[in-house]
């Protein structure tokens, strides 16, 4: 989706951008259908949806941050932090004594903590004027550290069906988190296209000086983007924990920042800001996930999959640069 809210007539550029992504998707699907064993199974679809949902949710938040001209490296660490907190809460004395309340707090409190992480990032960038890469590097390093300290570095396993619904529940036969991602996308899309906040978001990314001189609340908009990104990361962290019925602070969300940035860029986000293609981010997430799946299902090493991911980012950025020129 493009930044212009054209209801009647989408600009021509929109077409080519999405077509490139869709083409890649179709190619991946055809390739898998022909080559990968058991690809055309419902089970494969479920696995991929439940995997892609976390990437998509984080990538959408990342898209907002990138739209302001920033970047958020701390998303994986925030996932680990939120994911570590939830089991601590519902496994605590309080959580065991009041199971319903415990699960509710285990959902809400980690998201609030994640929100504060975003507030920290946003304040560093928008108030202190620190470069986004450096500002978010702080939590990138320390966030996971805090999560590991909280859990003493242990793997927390649990059995809590109510909480696990987040990762294993199904609606109309499809994984719950897939629906959740879709719902978030719709809300964000409407926010970007229909609200003043969304308009200011794109204006700040497009020309910060001009947005400021036109009365745009530049700081609030930027901080808002980082907060939303962090809350969505926290949610993704909870989903991962729910899927596994275990929280591993060392692995939860590891390298997620790369997946999310890649998905956002493949989806059409411009790194210099000014564009927030939310559904593009989902498409990007699907492509990233499918590439990963394709390689793994065909017996390629995990490490090689990383190289493939890097190549996708390079290709997407290269295409962006060519478009600009």
């Amino acid at each position, binding site marked *: 989706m493009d*930044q*212009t*809210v*054209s*209801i*009647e*007539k989408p*600009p021509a550029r929109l077409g080519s951008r999405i077509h490139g992504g869709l083409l890649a998707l179709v190619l991946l699907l055809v390739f898998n259908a022909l080559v990968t064993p058991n690809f055309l199974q419902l089970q494969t679809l479920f696995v991929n949806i439940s995997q892609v949902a976390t990437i998509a949710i984080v990538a959408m938040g990342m898209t907002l941050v990138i739209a302001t001209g920033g970047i958020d490296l701390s998303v994986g660490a925030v996932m680990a932090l939120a994911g570590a907190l939830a089991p601590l809460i519902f496994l605590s004395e309080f959580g065991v004594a009041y199971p319903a309340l415990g699960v509710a707090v285990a959902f809400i409190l980690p998201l609030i903590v994640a929100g504060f992480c975003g507030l920290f990032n946003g304040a560093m960038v928008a108030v202190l004027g620190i470069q986004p890469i450096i500002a978010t590097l702080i939590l990138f390093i320390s966030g996971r550290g805090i999560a590991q300290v909280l859990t003493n570095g242990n793997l927390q396993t649990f059995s809590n069906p109510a909480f696990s619904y987040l990762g294993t529940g199904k609606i109309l036969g499809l994984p719950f988190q897939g629906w959740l991602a879709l719902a978030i996308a719709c809300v964000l899309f409407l926010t970007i296209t*229909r*609200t*003043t*906040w969304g*308009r*200011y978001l*794109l*204006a700040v990314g*497009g*020309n910060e*000086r*001009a*947005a*400021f*001189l*036109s*009365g*745009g*609340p530049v700081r609030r908009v930027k901080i808002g983007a980082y907060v939303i990104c962090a809350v969505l990361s926290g949610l993704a962290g909870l989903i991962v924990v729910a899927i596994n019925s275990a929280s591993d602070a060392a692995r939860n969300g590891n390298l997620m920042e790369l997946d999310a940035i890649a998905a956002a860029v493949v989806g059409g986000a411009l790194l210099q800001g*000014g*564009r927030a293609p939310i559904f593009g981010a989902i498409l990007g997430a699907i492509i990233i996930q499918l590439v990963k799946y394709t390689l793994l299902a065909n017996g390629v090493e995990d490490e090689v999959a990383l190289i493939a991911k890097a190549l996708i980012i390079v290709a997407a950025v290269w295409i962006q640069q060519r478009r600009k020129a």
Partner: protein
Amino acid sequence: MLLSMTGIEKSFGGVPALRGAGIEIAPGEVHALIGQNGAGKSTLIKILTGVYRRDGGEISFAGHPSEVLSPREAQEAGIATIYQELNLVPLRSVTENVVMGYEPKAFGMLINWREAHRRTREILARFDIDIDVTAPLGSFSTAIQQLVAIARAVSLDAQMVIMDEPTSSLDAKEVEILFGVIRELKSQGVAVLYVSHFLDELFEICDRVTVMRDGQTITTRQLSETTKLDMIADMLGRNPDEVAAEGMTEFGGAAAKRGPVRLHAEGVATGPRLKRFDLTLHEGEIVGLGGLLGSGRTEAARALFGVDATQSGSIEIEGAPIRLEGPAEAISAGMGFLAEDRKAEGIIPDMSVRENLTLALLPKLASGGQIDFGREREIVERFIRTLGIKTADMDQPIRELSGGNQQKVLLARWLATEPEILILDEPTRGVDVGAKREIQAFVRDYVKKGFSVVLISSEFEEIVEGADRIIVMHEGRSVGELTNPGVTENMLVSALAQHGEGGAEWTRQ
């Protein structure tokens, strides 16, 4: 002649920047190049140094036709440039900066640092500069950094050094040091092309001056046979016959009757560029800020709009003192500010005409954070029609519009908010003649409705004919006031020149 450029032509996207411009410089001569902003000085220099390719004309340097294609080639040919923004690396040592790209090598690949330091000390000694060459360049004053840049240029056997506004960040003592270096260069037979807005300096250091205007070279004079008034007149291209031939602007000053006071500013200061600014603005009045570049016009506008924090002084709107913390507050206090730099501070290039036009109006277009698209389209349609904005449709990206139409969209951005006080900083810069007249007419209509305008323009014609009153500005101070009808450009020019000659305020203190 060391350098001779004749008949140089250059246009950008069909807009001519240079039309038959030229300059001639003798060896060992210090030659000044002056002109208003946009006169074509930097374009001419960039063609000489290979940054731009010329469309036509001849250049010969040191007796050969010159075909430099890059700044590096220009440097090798003996033309060195000291830019306004020094292109040195402050965190690296003085030596590294001086020998960068030409490091003495040991064993063919390693840098021979001992030799490099020795050579740097030797080069600097020629200008009586004795500093620790191993210290980071950034630890020295701007003047020293500038001298290092010059030393670097000379070490590359430059026959000509181009200095673009070399004194703009120097204090009086440092200027003297720089002039000493220039005299040293001169005695070594090196020519200097000296670009500056500070006219008094030229008399002190330059031999001849070439004046540019509208992409053309107007005249070259001996400085010993010219006066500052001559130079200003040449720069502005103002003599009575020409004004009569060109006709009037769409403005017609002093038509309005003065209403009650709307805005009053007294003793406003924001820093070294704005030291003391007074302004009284009535309802239905256009007040112009007259002055040369660097006189604090734009800074005054930024202070009024709350962009720069005021250090002292007071601003009152409708009699009530007000302290604005940023543009958002200024807008809700009923102000608008069309910024000078359309690209950097005005348009959001990838956004549509519609989104650009309603950017400042956005808070009023929304309820509960939701944009009212119906009203938005209605307002945009109305402004596209009344301002005659040429656009395929309102969803076309603004970057695809011509400069004049972009400027109309930005003007509409502010008119749409119906500000009681509209500050216009160079509202017609870089737009074609047609759009210029239209914009002037809109502004006049707006004021007729009882709104007030503060007008800043480098074009004296626009200020003199457009404003009901003109505040004369100098070195960050408002120093006088002229009231229409009856103000002529010559009156404004001499008001400016007086302050230069008399109070020595034009020189750098």
